[in-house]
C-alpha cells in the first residue's frame, strides 16, 4: 500500500455558522455542547475533527447529506475560514498563512474537482484545462502543451475544441479532473466528483480515477456519500455524522470492527468478501511449490476464482515479496460471518 509520512493534519477543527460564531465559541470553551450552540442559533457544520492524511493515499470522507463533508474540505483548503482548530500542510500552519501565501499554495500545490464540474461556459475544453496555468501568467504555448498532455491523460484527446455544453456529464467531469491536475498539485481534493453522474458512467470514471492515481500517486482527499464508492477507492475512510468524525480507518477496519452503531448500520450490508483484503488473512510461511500468487491488495472476492478452480491455498505477495498463504477454510469462516 502506498502510505507515506503525514502530509495534511487537522486538529480539533470546528466550523460554526451563525452571527458572531467565533465569539460564542471562545466563550463556550474548548468543548462546546452542540445543544448549547443550537440554542444560540448557530449551526456547527464541522465539530472537533482530527484527521491525518498520509502522502500518496486516497483518503475518503464519507457521510450523508448535510453531515459537513463539503464544509470540512473547504476548511482544509481554507476556502472558508474554520472557526477553531489547526490545519498543518507539510508542517506549515495553513490558518496562519496570509491570503497571498494561501493563493500561492492553492495555485501550485492544491487541485480541486467539483460536484457540478464548475466548468467555464465561455471557454473550450483546452482553455478550461489551461485556465489555472493562464491565471498564473504562463505563456500560451507552454500552457496549451501541458493542457493537451493532461487532456490526453484523461482520455479526451480530440475534443480540445469543444465547449462544455457540447459534452456529456462524464466528459465534463473528465475536463474538471484534467483542469485540477493541470498544475500538478500535490494535494488533490475531490468533492463528490461522480455524484452527479449516472451509475454506469460513475463506475467508468471510478476505474479511470484508480488508473490515474496508480500513475500519479497524489495525496487525495475524496468526498462521497456513497459507501460502495468509498470502499472501492479508499485507502482509508473517515465516516462523518452531524459534523463529527465517527470512525476513521481502512475499509476493512470499518467493516470488521465498527466503532459505533452508526458505522455498524452503514457497513452491515457490505459483503465482507469485497472489503477484506488477503493481507489480513495471510498466514506467514514459506512459499509452497507451484502455488498461484495474488497481490496483498486483492480482496477475498478477487481470490474466489482461484479457490473455485480447486486450489486449497493461494499465495499472497506484495511488491515482489512473498508474504504467506491464505487457506480455503479461513475464507469460508469469514464469509460465514465468523470473523478472521
Amino acid at each position, binding site marked *: 500500500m502506498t502510505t507515506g509520512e503525514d502530509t495534511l493534519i487537522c486538529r480539533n477543527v470546528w466550523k460554526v455558522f451563525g452571527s458572531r460564531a467565533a465569539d460564542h465559541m471562545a466563550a463556550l470553551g474548548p468543548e462546546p455542547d452542540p445543544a448549547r450552540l443550537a440554542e444560540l442559533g448557530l449551526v456547527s457544520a464541522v465539530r472537533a475533527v482530527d484527521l491525518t492524511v498520509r502522502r500518496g493515499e486516497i483518503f475518503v470522507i464519507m457521510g450523508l447529506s448535510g453531515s459537513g463533508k463539503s464544509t470540512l474540505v*473547504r476548511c482544509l*483548503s481554507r*476556502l472558508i475560514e474554520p472557526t477553531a482548530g489547526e490545519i498543518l500542510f507539510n508542517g506549515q500552519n495553513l490558518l496562519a498563512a496570509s491570503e497571498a501565501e494561501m*493563493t*500561492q499554495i*492553492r*495555485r501550485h500545490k*492544491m*487541485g*480541486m474537482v*467539483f*460536484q*457540478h*464540474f*464548475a466548468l*467555464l*461556459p*465561455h*471557454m*473550450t475544453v483546452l482553455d478550461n484545462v489551461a*485556465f*489555472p496555468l493562464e*491565471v*498564473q501568467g504562463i505563456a500560451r504555448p507552454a500552457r496549451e502543451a501541458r493542457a493537451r498532455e493532461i487532456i490526453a491523460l484523461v482520455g479526451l484527446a480530440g475534443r480540445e*475544441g*469543444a*465547449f462544455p*455544453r457540447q459534452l456529456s456529464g462524464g466528459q465534463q467531469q473528465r475536463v474538471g479532473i484534467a*483542469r485540477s491536475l493541470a*498544475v500538478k498539485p500535490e494535494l488533490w481534493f475531490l468533492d463528490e466528483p461522480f455524484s452527479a453522474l449516472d451509475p454506469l458512467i460513475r463506475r467508468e470514471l471510478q476505474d479511470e480515477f484508480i488508473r490515474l492515481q496508480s500513475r500519479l500517486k497524489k495525496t487525495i482527499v475524496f468526498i462521497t456519500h456513497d459507501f460502495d464508492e468509498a470502499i472501492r477507492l479508499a485507502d482509508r475512510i473517515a465516516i462523518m455524522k452531524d459534523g463529527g468524525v465517527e470512525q476513521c480507518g481502512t475499509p476493512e477496519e470499518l467493516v470488521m470492527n465498527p466503532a459505533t452503531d452508526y458505522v455498524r448500520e452503514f457497513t452491515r450490508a457490505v459483503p465482507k468478501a469485497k472489503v477484506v483484503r488477503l493481507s489480513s488473512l495471510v498466514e506467514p510461511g514459506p512459499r509452497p511449490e507451484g502455488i498461484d500468487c495474488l497481490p496483498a491488495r486483492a480482496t477475498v472476492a478477487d481470490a474466489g476464482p482461484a479457490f473455485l478452480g480447486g486450489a486449497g491455498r493461494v499465495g499472497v505477495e506484495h511488491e515482489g515479496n512473498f508474504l504467506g498463504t491464505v487457506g480455503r477454510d479461513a475464507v469460508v469462516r469469514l464469509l460465514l460471518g465468523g470473523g478472521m
Partner: protein
Amino acid sequence: MTVRTGKPFGGWLIWTLALAIAAAVWLWGEALVPFAFDYPKGWRIPAARWIGSFVNWLVKDAAVGPVAFSDLTRFVAAVIDKPYQLALALLADGWQVAEGGAARQVVPPLAWLAVIGIVALAGLWAGGPGLAALMAAAFAFVAVFGQWHSAMVTLASILVAVPVGVAGGLMLGVLSWRHPWFESLLRPLLDLMQTMPVFAYLVPILILFGFGPTAAVVATLIYAMPPMTRVTTLSLQRLPGETHDLARMVGCTPRQTLWRVLVPSAREPLMVGVNQVIMLSLNMVIIASMIGAGGLGFDVLTALRRLDFGAGLEAGLAIVALAIALDRLSQAVARRGYRAPLPGGIVARHPYLTAALALILLCFVLGLALPAVQGYPEAAQLSTSAFWAAAVEWINVTFFDTLEAVKNTILLWILVPVKRFLVGMPWAVAVALLGLAGWRLGGWRLAVLVAGLSFLIAATGQWEKAMITVYLCGISTLIALAIGIPLGIAVAGRERAWMVTRTVIDTLQTLPSFVYLMPVVMLFRVGDFTAMIAVVAYAVVAVIRYTVLGLQGVDPRLIEAGRAMGCTDWQLLTRIRLRLALPEILLGLNQTIMFALSMLVITALVGTRDLGQDVYIALTKANPGNGLVAGLAIAFIAIIADRLLAAAARAQRQRLGLEAA
C-alpha cells in the same frame, strides 16, 4: 416586522371607529380645525425654492477642490457627445464641411441598403435566417414609410446610450455586489430612480447639460441603468458557490475572478439586463426628444402636438419596428452561446464582418452612380397619413353622438363625483387614515413612512393636485382590474388562448406609451376621460399577466382536493384558485399602479390638471424646483401604494400559510 392579523372583529371595530371619526371631522370640523382642510400657506415647506437654488448652486459654484461640478458635467457631455457625433454621421448625416453659408456633404452616411444588409447579417449571425429576415423587414418597413432619417438619428442615440448604460450598470452592480454598504446606499436611490417619473429629472438635466442630444442620452441613461445594475448584482449573487470556489482554488486575483470567471459565467442573466437597457432606452425615445433628442421621438411629439395622427402613428410604429428588431436580436445573442473560433486567415475567421465591410464598400460605390442605393427613393415611399385622417374624420362624424354620450355619462356619474370626494377630503383625515392602514398592515414603521410621505405632499402645497392624480390613477386602476382579472381568468386555463394573449400583451408592452394616447385623443379629444382610457389601455397588461401567473401557480393538488370535495367550478374559482392567487394578483395591482402613474405624466400632454401637468409645465419653463417637487410627490404616491400593497400581500400570504410569519 410584526404583522397584526388580529381577530376580524377587532379589525372591524377599529376601522368603523376610525371612519366614523373621519366622517365627523369632515362634516363638522371645518370651523374647529380649519388647518386640517387647507394646509396653511405659512407652514409650507418651500422645497421647490430650495431645490431651485440648489441646482443653481450646483451649476454655478459647486466644486470639489479645483474641479468644479460644471467641469464634471462637461466631461460627461464630452464622453457622450463624441461617439454620438460619430454614430450620427455614420448613420444619418454623413460628414460635412462648411462652404460659404451652407454645408456640403463630403462623405455620405451609410447607404440604406448597406444598413439593412448589416442588420440582416447581424440577425443571421445571432439567430439564423429567420431572424435575418425579421431584421431586414423591420428596417425596410422604416424605409418604406419614409422614416429612415429619423430612425437613424434615433438609432445613433441608442447606439451610444446602450453601451454606456450597460457598462455603467455593470460597474455599479459589481460594486454593490462587492461592498454591501455600497448596495445599501444605492438601493434606495435605484428605487427612487425607478418610481420617479422621468419628466421630473428632465429639467435639472436640461440645466446641467443644455438642450440637445447629450442631455437626452443622459436622461435615457438614468432611466435605463437601474435594471442593469440590479440584474448584475443579482446574477453575481446567484452564481453557484462552486464557481466562486473554483476561482479561489486556481488562485485568481480579484480582477481575474470577476472578468475571467464570474461575469462570463453569468452571461445569460446579464444579457437579460442588456435587453432591458435596450428596451428602456427605446421607451425613452419620445420623452428624450423633449430635451433635444431628434429622430422618431421628435416626430411623434410634433405630430401629437399638431394632432396629426397619421404622421404620429407612422413614427410611433417605426419606433416599435426598431424595438422589436433590437429586442429579438439581443435575445438571440443571449441564447447564442459561445462558439469555437473559425480556423484560417483573418478573412476566413470573420466571415460576417468581412461581408459587412464588403457590402458597405459596394453600396458606397454603387451609391455614387445610383442615388436609390444611397437613400431610399422618395417616390417609392408610402404614407398612410391621409388614410388615418379620413378614418378619424369618418368615425367622428358617424359616431360623434355615441362617443360623446359614453364619455359624458362616465364623466358625470363616475369621474366627477370621485374627483369631488377625493379633492374635498381634508388632508389631515387622509393622512391619518393612511397611517392607520399602514399600522394595521405592517406595524408602526410602515405607519410612520406612509403618514410621513403623505404629510410631505401636503406640506409642499401639492395636496389638491396629488388628489387629482390619485383619483385618475385609482379609477383607471379599478377599471383595468375590472377588465383584466376576468380576462386573465378566462385565458389562464386555456393553453392556446393564453399563448395568443401573451403574444398580444408582449407586443403591447413594446409600444411606446405615447402610442396609446393618440387613438384615444383622436376619438375623445383632450381631458380626464381621454387620460383615463389611455392609462387603462396601458396598464391592463400588467393585471392580465399577474392574474394568469397567480392562477397558473396554484398547486393543482389543491384544486383536485377541492373537486374531490364536490366544489362547483364557481366555488373552485372563488374559494380556492382566486384566493391562493391573491398575493400575485396584489403584486399585479402594484405594477398596474406604477404603470398608471408613469402613464399619467404623459397624459398631462392632453391636458389633465394633476401633478403630471406641473411636471410638464416646469419642463417648458425650465424650472427645476417645481418639476422635481411635483415629480417627488408622484414618487411618494407610488411608494405609499407600493409599500401598503406589499404589506397586504405579505399578510395575505401568511394567512394562507405560504410564508412564515
